[in-house]
């Protein structure tokens, strides 16, 4: 599985997870010249911008560890662009989802809510 396929697979799993939670998906892989937002969804409280990170093992650490302060800052910046073109009222939140897809194992997913607080 190439890196791109792995990422795609992880994002699919994350989207399925959010749907299972009863969230409404607004948008996936929203792109602008400055970058990409993996998932935008709405739960019962807020509009949620989601960063998904997928890894094929823990050899380089947990995928959530790769979501650094810089990445979260970037996500916020992209979110403000999205909101300019898609004005929404109400609360906004930023979540992170780490997916580990190891050969021969069930994929494991960890979902952290409100990473900017």
């Amino acid at each position, binding site marked *: 599985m190439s890196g791109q396929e792995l990422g795609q697979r992880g994002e699919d799993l994350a989207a399925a997870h959010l749907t299972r939670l009863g969230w409404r998906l607004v948008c996936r892989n929203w792109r602008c010249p400055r970058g990409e937002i993996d998932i935008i969804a709405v739960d019962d409280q807020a509009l949620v911008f989601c960063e998904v990170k997928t890894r094929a093992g823990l050899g380089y650490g*947990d995928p*959530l560890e790769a979501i650094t302060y810089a990445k*979260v800052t970037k996500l916020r910046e992209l979110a403000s662009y999205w909101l300019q073109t898609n004005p929404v009222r109400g609360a906004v939140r930023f979540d992170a989802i780490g997916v580990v897809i190891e050969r021969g194992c069930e994929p494991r997913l*960890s979902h*952290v809510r*409100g*990473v900017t607080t």
Partner: protein
Amino acid sequence: MTFARAWSVALVGVEGRLIEVEAYLGGGLPRTVIIGLADASLAEARDRTKAAVLCAGFRWPPQALTVNLSPATLPKTGSHYDLAIVAAVMAALGDVPVDSLEATVLLGELGLDARVRPVRGVLPALLAAADRGLTRAIVPALQVGEASLVEGLSVWGVQTLGEVAAVLRGEPVVSAPPEIAVAARPADSADLRDVVGQAEAKFALEVAAAGRHHLFMTGPPGVGKTLLAERLPGLLPELDLAEALEVSAIHSLTGEPLEAGLIRRPPYADPHHSASIASMVGGGAMVALPGSVSKAHRGVLFLDEAPEFSPKVMEALRVPLESGRITLGRSLATTTYPARFQLVMAANPCPCGRYGVKGAQCHCPPMSVRRYAERLSGPVLDRVDLTQRLLPMRRSYLRAVVGTGEDSRAVAARVLAARERQAHRFRGHFWRTNGEVPGPELRRRYPLPDGVEILDAAVATGRLSARGVDKVLRVSWTLADLDGAERPLAQHLHTALALRCGDDGRNDGRA
């Protein structure tokens, strides 16, 4: 369980304060924060402990981890908190039982490969822990010997993080005993018999040892000043338990291994004359570490080539000489170290070293001879009870090589007997030896020697200062103790006067 706590110890000087190490798993993106006034070496524990935990095959929480060191207002320094931090984190994750940490103090630095490395100050830290009622200690395997000196603690030595976890889980620890390289201390290999001749100086040394008097030796190079000073600790009696604990705690702080047990022999420190104030009295950034005066606590501080020491360093000795301790203020903490040492100084009579030596030619102009002598701090010299002038050996040298004097053991036995007489006389007081008795107390409480009039004469001619009188009295008591006399006799007083003034019978009238 998202919360757990472990215990460690912070050292402020030689005093330990129990530190509660709390770990809290708070969800959120993975990051580790150490709070509680940690210094740089402790903040690095974050990366050290994580690497060690992963290396040992354990888990590190993939979420926000907060480690708090409490009391949070006490500045903390050093790498010995690693083990306690890891233990708290593993307990919070549920990898070791939380209640296994209840009465356990953990000390040790972790290597990235999960090895447990030795740290400084294990002895004073564990004394504090035992004092606060903790019952178990986990320490680096190399320091089990040092840790076992503390009563009331069951000590576990660990070599790796895996063993720490095993101890905490109550599993049997299977490990090879560490190879302890017991440095073969040349146990008093320096014997008084090695010093040829110099009977008078040896006698002065014996008196100094018996009464714990400060000693000043002067003489040309090569007459044996240094040799004699090195043999003084061998003449001193062993430290009692309380003293041994004090001395061992200081040496543990300076990182000296104590695996051979408590330091029972009086220590010996001989700093070079280029020593700075910080190295002499103690120093360091933020929290001060002990210096030579504290390393010589309950032992001997020998200053060779005393006039070469910087005047400021010499002046810094005055406070510990007076009070027996030194208080050092630094930005983070003010620490007090014990520093009750016996001062021995040696000096040449002039820069070339030949001044006043019969048959030798001194090339120093009179002014430089004088300046050389003046470099010695007056106030410090004033604390000296015994001044001994050493002269070079004459024709008898070769004969003396064969027929040497007594060995250290014989002299030490007399010193011990004299010390016991003093201990008996001074029981119930804070001073223990003649050298420590305050002058007024000495004159008021204890009988004056016979023939004390000669002191009046010496004072009248300006040979002796008023303070010098007390010193002569002290030394005369020591001489009486060495002789087994009830109180000093006239002969003791005469000898004491000669020892105080550095007279050797040949320079009468000049000194």
